[in-house]
């Protein structure tokens, strides 16, 4: 590597880093604003126009805040954990293109590299949980380990489905391959699996189990403050952006669907804008989930992962393989994919019974109770039906 190359790569890496930092600032603002809209609030309004400078104020606050080290913490593990989460999240972006020719280093095995690196952040969460010497953090760290490792499988399997379509692990090839038909149209099942597994990997609602505020009070991050907490925070938002970007690259044709006009620099710029627009749309979808859904329980999450997503992801591979092998028209694959999805939704919807079966609360008119007073004169004795006794209006 010549000195010029080294300089060029360093500059590009610095540029990428700056791009990611700015993205995180935008994402924090966007998330607060989007949630505020859902919840009929204004969100941040004070710092700058509609609070656009709020993330900067927050960043300054976090950096100047005191860094607290719990007395019984394992010092080295505790301080290293934020880095162990942050570094992999940055490393992923080495090979993620943000537009035509806009990539730090395109790898032929890009997807392989991404799946390999993205697993590493689990280690940081477990380190944080262990190093904090806090029971909530510990519980959160273990939850993170269980959750992230189990969802790694459907995540990779969904990626594999796309790779089989394009016969490549190179992201630019995969994008080029979708220039006429995006993968979302061919593999809706794969998209469904990828998005859910991606949300679980991120620990975003409804899978935010490892840092559930109402249960483990922030999980692995509970003891962190100031700049170290900010590093975790950065990593989380970068990961969110990464998953959204991958969703766009793998399923929405990246910058290439439909193809952007012009050539040369203009084309690159336009493709980057188009790509970012799609990515932010996916991110807004994730924020929408966060504003709407409750959280699953850890055992339900595991059951959903192993009994639902893992078999489905294998099924996705199988139908993709069959369709590819026999060279069927892409619509055949779409049909099978949609069929599997429809069956899945039906099963999920049916599982706790239909709406009528679920309705276990019935209303008894006061008049009925007054006209037929239960046996006994007063107080608790008046309310002593046997569990099996039929109730006045017989509701179920």
């Amino acid at each position: 590597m010549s000195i010029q190359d080294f300089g060029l790569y360093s500059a590009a890496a610095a540029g990428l880093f700056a791009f990611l930092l700015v993205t995180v600032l935008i994402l924090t603002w966007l998330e607060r604003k989007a949630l505020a809209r859902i919840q009929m609030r204004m969100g941040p309004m004070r710092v700058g126009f509609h609070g656009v400078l709020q993330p900067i104020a927050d960043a300054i606050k976090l950096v100047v805040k005191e860094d607290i080290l719990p007395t019984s913490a394992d010092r080295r593990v505790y301080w290293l954990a934020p880095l162990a989460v942050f570094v992999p999240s940055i490393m992923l972006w080495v090979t993620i293109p943000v537009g035509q020719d806009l990539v730090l280093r395109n790898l032929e095995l890009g997807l392989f590299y991404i799946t390999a690196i993205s697993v590493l952040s689990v280690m940081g969460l477990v380190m944080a949980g262990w190093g904090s010497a806090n029971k909530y953090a510990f519980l959160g760290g273990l939850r993170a380990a269980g959750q992230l490792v189990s969802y790694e499988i459907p995540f990779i399997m969904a990626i594999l489905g796309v790779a089989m379509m394009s016969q490549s692990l190179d992201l630019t090839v995969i994008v080029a391959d979708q220039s006429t038909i995006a993968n979302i149209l061919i593999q809706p099942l794969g998209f469904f699996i990828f998005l859910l597994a991606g949300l679980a990997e991120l620990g975003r609602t409804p899978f935010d189990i490892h840092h559930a505020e109402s249960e483990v009070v922030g999980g692995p991050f509970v003891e962190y403050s100031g700049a170290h907490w900010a590093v975790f925070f950065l990593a989380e938002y970068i990961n969110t952006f990464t998953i959204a970007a991958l969703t766009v690259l793998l399923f929405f044709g990246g910058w290439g669907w439909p193809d952007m006009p012009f050539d040369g620099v203009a084309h690159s710029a336009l493709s980057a804008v188009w790509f970012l627009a799609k990515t932010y749309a996916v991110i807004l979808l994730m924020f929408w989930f966060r504003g709407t859904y409750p959280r699953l329980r850890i055992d339900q999450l595991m059951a959903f992962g192993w009994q639902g997503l893992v078999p489905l992801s294998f099924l996705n591979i199988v139908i993709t393989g069959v369709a590819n092998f026999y060279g069927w028209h892409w619509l055949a694959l779409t049909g099978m994919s949609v069929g599997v999805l429809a069956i899945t939704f039906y099963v999920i919807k049916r599982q706790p019974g239909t709406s009528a079966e679920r309705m276990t609360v019935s209303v008894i008119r006061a008049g009925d109770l007054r006209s037929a007073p239960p046996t006994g004169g007063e107080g608790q004795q008046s309310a002593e039906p046997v569990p099996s006794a039929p109730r006045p209006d017989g509701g179920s």
Partner: protein
Amino acid sequence: MIESTKEPGLDSLDLMINMGPQHPSTHGVFRLVIGVDGERIVRAEPHIGYLHRGSEKLCEAEDYAQIVTLFDRMDYIANLNSELGYALAVEKLMALEIPERAEYIRVILCELNRIASHMLFYGVYGLDVGAMTPVLYGFRERERIQALFESVTGARMMHNYIRIGGVKEDLPDDFDARMKALVSQLELGIEECDRLLTDNEMFLARTKGIGSIGPTDAIDFGVTGPSLRASGVAEDVRISEPYGLYDRFDFGIPVGTNGDCWDRYYVRVEEMRQSLVIIEQAMAQMEPGPIMAKVRRITRPPKGEVYMRTESPRGDLGVFIVSDGSDRPYRLKVRAPSFANLQGLKHMLRDAYVADAVVILGSIDIVLGEVDR
């Protein structure tokens, strides 16, 4: 159910976790010590008393009119219902006849307070199961009710409005119009809240069949109010021992089947609708008139004792007063519904997961100010 995670032959301890007194989901300063084996709870020990202010003892040092303010601070989510329980007890002791208009005002405001209390429950229950939006929807509705309270009583929470013998002031002139607007807003608001959470697959998965308690167990533990009705017992003091004007209204009592978290949740949602029904009837029946009975400046009930039950949003609120004929009670005891309902917690927590503990505790809807008193 996951099998025990312990290795056979290995000497291992359960992880003891202190949930509270400072924990976001304990709804105040409640402390729950749980022993967990993996994610499963094997032991649970509730500790209370962190908010004990000696209210019952304080009552012995205040005269009867002043005690109302102490009751405001017991159930601080449903202040008016709390005040009402006390005022009715003293009135029963004195055998006071209350003007009809005052009774109607009490019914309307107390039912509104019940809605406000259940709305708060709805919101924080959403937080407990991990949904962050319901709390803002619930608070929006509660805020509307509190704005109306402010115009009537002068305060958003610590009203000191219900007096022995009636109420402090008559309703403001624009009350009818505001109330009409509020009722239609609340009808919409309750439907909106219902749609947001009730039928969500994940919410169902988190609450159906969790923390169930049967009717006999519930009665044995002294559970009352919505939590008891969720277990399938149609018991409501407003009907079984009517006080005030409750025998004049036609309304429904929501009753559950399984006594699980979902039933406890939905009984409250349904109760909000029924409270609106009562309010509409009361508004239609109410006529102008005096708002205070003829009482002396200083209340001196006759010698004797009295026990009065009312239906607060949390359950059966009982007030027991022993009077020695002076202007202060000789002894005052409150049967706080939250305190009694909390006794069932350990039973509900059997075989639960850590995440369930939060959901179950939330579904009982305790107010620590009332538990500890």
